[in-house]
């Protein structure tokens, strides 16, 4: 469309995937919202996952983690 195989978007050239770019854009937009909407939307960024470390070929007890990550935070 815009590129003929030569020009790539600047984030692709810097080694970023589209998924990461899209998630960064979304989290920046969420951080600019007004108050009631902002806290609702930050709950959407939560990632829940369970991690189990493997030692000597055996999995240890899995740990359930809830991670709230602001991908790009304003310091």
């Amino acid at each position: 469309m815009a590129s003929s195989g030569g020009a790539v978007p600047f984030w692709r050239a810097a080694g970023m995937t589209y998924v990461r770019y899209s998630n960064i854009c979304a989290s920046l937009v969420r951080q600019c919202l007004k108050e009631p909407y902002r806290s609702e939307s930050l709950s959407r960024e939560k990632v829940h996952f369970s991690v189990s470390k493997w030692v000597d070929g055996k999995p240890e007890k899995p740990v359930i983690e809830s991670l709230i990550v602001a991908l790009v935070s304003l310091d």
Partner: protein
Amino acid sequence: MLRLAPRLLRRSLARTFADVPATPTQDSSFVQAWQKINPNLDPPKTPLAFMTPRPPTPSSIPSKLTVNFVLPYQSELASKEVDMVIIPATTGHMGVLPGHVATIAELRPGILSVHEGSSVTKYFVSSGFAFIHANSFADIVAVEAVPVDRFDPTLVQKGLAEFQQKLAIASTDLEKAEAQIGVDVHSALNSALAG
């Protein structure tokens, strides 16, 4: 006259479906090979049989555009008939009317406006894709789409200043890219809130 009627009818039917690509519901050579081996069993259905054929492009342009606008957590518009949608594509704002040529557009942070009669609904879209089909259906998918009145202008200005600063002091490619994304998003938000 009456003798020719079936032939005329057949010809007009053929014309209506002429532009649908031939999607056979069953692979005929597979069916024949199956019948040779066990003629008593029905041939199994292949994935091709489960696919619904592409809906035919109507011969006259429909009067309304049907829009499906979805976010990961909810659907904003589900098969809504509208007059026009203006989408913020990477190649610029694109107006989509009924009868638009089939297009896939990548969206950039910007305003998506839905025009229905005299009312206009505007959303700020963070990024996503718009698929416009030949039969005047548009599927728009976005990660975040927020009505413009839900933003806080001071936060936007603050963010813009922060990222412009980050862009100036960025050293690695990745930092520069992240800062550039921040600047793009915040300046799009700024112009959205202003205009």
